[in-house]
């Protein structure tokens, strides 16, 4: 993992050095590094701003979606229509909502958090509902033969069986949340990496733009792998 990253950066450095690619498009790592160390505090401040949107939005979006899917799971008609709605929602690039929603909700940090939450909500709602419904057949019959109550069947069978699918979306939503936060910052914000990148791009301060991208990529990866590790702790059987 570390090795392949190293190779990637060396390749990147050499590519910029020996190809005649314009500095407006791609900057060598050796130019980015000093920019990062010199502007560490600023970058960290912007990153914190964005990270709060991402973390809270991700957390609440997923949590509310899970709670909602548990509630509607008991109502066959609603959960069926949620699943068929999923087909449509998945075909729509929800990220476009980020632009529109900004106009309704506002441009401050809380507004971004809400937009991130909304964009995490739907994938989780659909996948969790579908996963709950997919636990069927003999497993269901087994629990019926124990005369198990619905809540017990849910806790002991349906929820754990759905965990792999849920974790997949938790990870997917990390990427989703970061993209949403950045993009909605592009559409106007009072802070954050997205807004920072946009501002620096206006000054053609390319190394700074790349430094911003760097920061978000690294912190995003950390977040992603944290969930991956949590998944491995929870799901030992897959």
């Amino acid at each position: 993992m570390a090795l392949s990253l190293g190779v990637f950066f060396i390749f990147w450095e050499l590519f910029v050095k020996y190809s005649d690619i314009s500095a407006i498009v791609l900057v060598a790592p050796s130019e980015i590094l000093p920019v990062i160390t010199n502007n560490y505090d600023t970058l960290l401040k912007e990153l914190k701003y964005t990270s709060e949107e991402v973390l809270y939005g991700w957390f609440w979006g997923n949590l509310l979606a899970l709670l909602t899917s548990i509630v509607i799971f008991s109502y066959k008609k609603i959960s069926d229509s949620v699943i068929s709605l999923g087909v449509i929602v998945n075909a729509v690039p929800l990220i476009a909502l980020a632009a529109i929603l900004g106009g309704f909700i506002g441009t401050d940090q809380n507004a971004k958090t809400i937009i991130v939450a909304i964009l995490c909500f739907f994938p989780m709602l659909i996948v969790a509902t579908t996963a709950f419904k997919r636990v069927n057949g003999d497993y269901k019959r087994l629990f019926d033969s124990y005369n198990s109550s619905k809540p017990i069947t849910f806790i002991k069978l349906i929820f754990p069986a759905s965990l792999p699918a849920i974790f997949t979306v938790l990870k997917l939503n990390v990427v989703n949340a970061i993209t949403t936060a950045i993009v909605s910052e592009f559409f106007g914000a009072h802070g954050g990496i997205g807004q920072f990148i946009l501002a620096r791009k206006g000054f053609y301060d390319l190394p700074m733009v790349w430094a911003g991208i760097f920061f978000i990529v690294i912190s995003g990866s950390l977040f992603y792998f944290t969930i991956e590790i949590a998944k491995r702790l929870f799901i030992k059987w897959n």
Partner: protein
Amino acid sequence: MQKNNSIELKELSILYNDLKIGLEAVSKVSFDVKNGEFISIVGPSGCGKSTILKVISDTLDLSYSETRGDVKVLGSSPKKAREQRKIGFVFQKPTLLQWRNLEKNVSLPLEIIGLNKAEIKKRVKKLLKMVELEKYASYHPDQLSGGMQQKVSIARALAYDPEILLMDEPFGALDEINRRKMNDELLSVWKETGKTIVFVTHSIEEAIYLSERIIVLTKQPGRIKKIINVDLPYPRKKELGSMKFYKYINQIRSLLENEEEIV
């Protein structure tokens, strides 16, 4: 209901109506299963064997099926028998919970029933010993062979001491040698516990080896073709190559072949 009958079916017909045209899966099937009896059901694929087990265990989804006729389990309705946890079900696949180790898989029904921890521990230990898997108590299902997994699912079905065991092709996925081994173990469990066992299989030989009686069904919609008494002494290992055993095989095979269907 006769006192010494575990299960009584009278003119049982089952209709699936989730398709545009309803499908009659089982047609006017009547038979009794005595207390402690080992009975097998054989018949062409799709003749309704699994469906019959689902009706007996009250696990058929009523939202897309219709049942006619009369079914009595231990003197009352299947629903009541299920609510009193009188029926254990073993499926073709072991249906173990992957996130639980063997011990926890066997204890699952006991937890649901709400037994105390000490009692659960005691019973699980005994059951794992019975199926010779004590050493594997902390293993997870994916660390075991299919045969071992199926033994766990049998132990699990016996955990809450149901009076009736329904088994739907439980050894269908095993190779010949393991299947024979499992057959012997099942017979010893049967002898030890005295459970009533209804066993569905595609193997004529397995049915003869295990059961006191064999119900042969026609192709879909399943009707009773014949009920055969297997008049061979247990253990039947010595009988395997015998003339009588062979005669039973031929009898059942020709009953099934008359259906122009491969079993």
